[in-house]
């Protein structure tokens, strides 16, 4: 995953003056340097990944995604519908997915809460779909126009029942574009809902992005049945654990239910079949951790202290790390692009090498619990929670770095 971090001090102005990795030489033929918000980049990424269905409901700070989809999708032959609420939006994208569409929705905290039941249906029935969740201050109506990272645990455990889920968290506009494509790809490949976890800062800030990408990303499609309908077992335990999925209307008549089901999709109450389904739903994600979990590390080779941060906070964290290193501090930055499944191995290795891991986050301490859990006491884990619902500043993180530095 090539991410194009640039010095946050340098605003993207023109390509001639711009510094850093984002410049990447001159523009190639057909490429354009665009100024775009995270929400806009999400739409562009989704269209590039083949999304042809969007159902949504207006909510700050995610509304722009729906607005832009309403403009862009019909021109691409796709469908946009504004549903009566977020429950219906989630239901509609699952329905569209069953009809063969690549479908997504976008929302924020209150809407994401409403989506939870049907999100679980998508997990259970294994329907590919993507939810762009732009976090705002909470709980309840909270702060619609302020950033937050307080839904990290909700993305993991929001819907009821034991389940696995994939959650990706970009920290820039270009990365929102690429991770949206990755989210669509993963939802197709693993037949699972994927949550693209943004926050208000990433969604609304404008940055330079060069499109099309230097190297086009692979676009993945869900596995499809190749056998005749009478041989099709819709929830068969295949070696990949991801059974091929027929769309309704393709001649494979089968049953889809949110009830616990056997390999044929029919409800079951047999303990062995219940266990087999629940195990497969977990393992199809778990056994693919290598392909799903993405972590980026910078300045860690000589570091004794690591800052572990995601989303917009990782931008502040990077600045703090750079400032601290200028002062001689041995500090590095580790950034999970995949929040769930949690980067367990990366944190275990980090804990063996570091004296201290600092976890700044815009909530009262959610990510830090996972870091602590997987550090297993091998190093000190310092929480830096911030819940003023303003972007966590580099100065705050720098102060904490200097405080813990020996």
């Amino acid at each position, binding site marked *: 995953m090539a991410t194009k971090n640039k010095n946050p001090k340098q605003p993207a102005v023109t390509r001639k003056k711009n510094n850093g990795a984002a410049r990447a030489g001159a523009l190639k033929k057909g490429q354009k340097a665009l100024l775009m918000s995270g929400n806009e980049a999400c739409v562009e990424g989704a269209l590039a990944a083949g999304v042809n269905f969007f*159902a949504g409901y207006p909510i700050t700070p995610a509304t722009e995604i729906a607005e832009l989809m309403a403009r862009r999708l019909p021109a691409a032959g796709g469908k946009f*519908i504004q*549903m009566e609420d977020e429950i219906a939006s989630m239901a509609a994208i699952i329905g*569209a997915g069953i*009809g063969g569409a690549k479908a997504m929705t976008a929302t924020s905290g209150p809407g994401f809460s409403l989506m939870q039941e049907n999100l679980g249906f998508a997990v259970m029935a294994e329907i590919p779909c993507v939810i762009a969740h732009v976090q705002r201050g909470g709980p309840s109506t909270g702060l619609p126009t302020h950033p937050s990272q307080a839904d990290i645990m909700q993305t993991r455990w929001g819907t009821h029942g034991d389940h696995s889920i994939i959650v990706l968290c970009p920290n820039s506009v270009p990365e929102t574009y690429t991770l949206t494509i990755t989210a669509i790809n993963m939802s197709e490949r693993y037949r699972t809902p994927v949550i693209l976890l943004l926050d208000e800062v990433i969604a609304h800030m404008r940055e330079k992005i060069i499109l099309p990408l230097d190297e086009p990303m692979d676009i993945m499609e869900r596995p499809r049945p190749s056998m005749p309908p009478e041989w099709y077992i819709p929830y068969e335990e295949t070696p990949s654990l991801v059974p091929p999925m027929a769309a*309704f*209307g393709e001649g494979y008549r089968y*049953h889809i*239910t949110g009830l616990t089901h056997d390999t044929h999709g029919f409800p079951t109450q047999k303990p062995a079949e219940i266990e087999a389904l629940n195990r497969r739903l977990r393992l199809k994600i778990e056994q693919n951790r290598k392909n799903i979990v993405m972590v980026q590390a910078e300045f860690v080779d000589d570091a004794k202290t690591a800052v572990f941060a995601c989303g917009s906070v990782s931008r502040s964290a990077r600045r703090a790390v750079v400032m601290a290193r200028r002062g001689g501090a041995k500090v590095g930055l580790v950034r999970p692009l995949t929040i769930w499944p949690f980067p367990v191995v990366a944190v275990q290795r980090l804990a063996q090498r570091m004296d201290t891991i600092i976890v700044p986050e815009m909530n009262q301490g959610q990510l830090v619990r996972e870091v602590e859990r997987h550090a297993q006491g091998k190093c000190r884990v310092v929480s830096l929670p911030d819940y003023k619902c303003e972007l966590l500043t580099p100065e705050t993180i720098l102060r904490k770095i200097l405080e813990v530095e020996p």
Partner: protein
Amino acid sequence: MSLPHRMPHRTSDLLYKYLRTDKKFPHLWCPGCGNGIVMGSLIRAIDRLKLSQDDVVVMSGIGCSGRMPVYMDFNTLHTTHGRALAFATGLKLANPALQVIVVMGDGDATAIGGNHFIHAARRNIDITAIVINNHIYGMTGGQYSPATPSGDRSTTSPMGNIERPFDICNLAMSSGAPFVARGTVYHVTLLDRLIENAIAKRGFAVVEAMSTCPTTYGRYNKKGSPVDMMKQLRDAAVPADKAREMPDADLQGRLITGVLKDMELPEYCDLYDGIIERAGGAS
């Protein structure tokens, strides 16, 4: 737009063609339940319309009615409680070639799913909505629903229901559905034709099938045996043509049956095709 009456089919032919006879039987409905009768009507309607099983989607929410799709050999989808119409909206819009039929109960369609029900009607998307109204939540053991008559007893209205019920057909009509009809599980040939007409209708078509739940509603309200409850349906029914000539006072407590509304309105998927064309996205 009533279709000419035809001889009934040989039931056994239909059973083996349209039911998953080797998989999911016996079914879980109680003796005397009306759900099986509605399922029979639905199958005969689909058969008469000569629809390909591959093109038909039968879907449901949660409750006794929610179990219907699993018995039927179509593309079948058993969704979450109250949300079937929202799933159906996405499915139909994504693939308008599918014939989407949604089976719901009174609680499923008008309580938890009430919002989706009125908005699907308002949008006029080409979906057939069959609401089986047995006045109660049967699967959970008999709690009052938005269709339980005032004064009636249920496990959650042990002293009598103080709420007023929805008239589900009125709700559908006032929400904008272009086709609304009411049948009963006693008047089976009528129900066959109403469902057939509803599926043939291009637009959001609602059929309310008045049904019986002898196990809960019947017992709690001393409605007698399943046969008694069938007779009550027979006696309460008034054909719509006849009802128009009757004074309102005589229609109190009666069930007006037949096609209550049938008009032409632009259909949502057709309108959206126009949007795609205007946006230049037509292939």
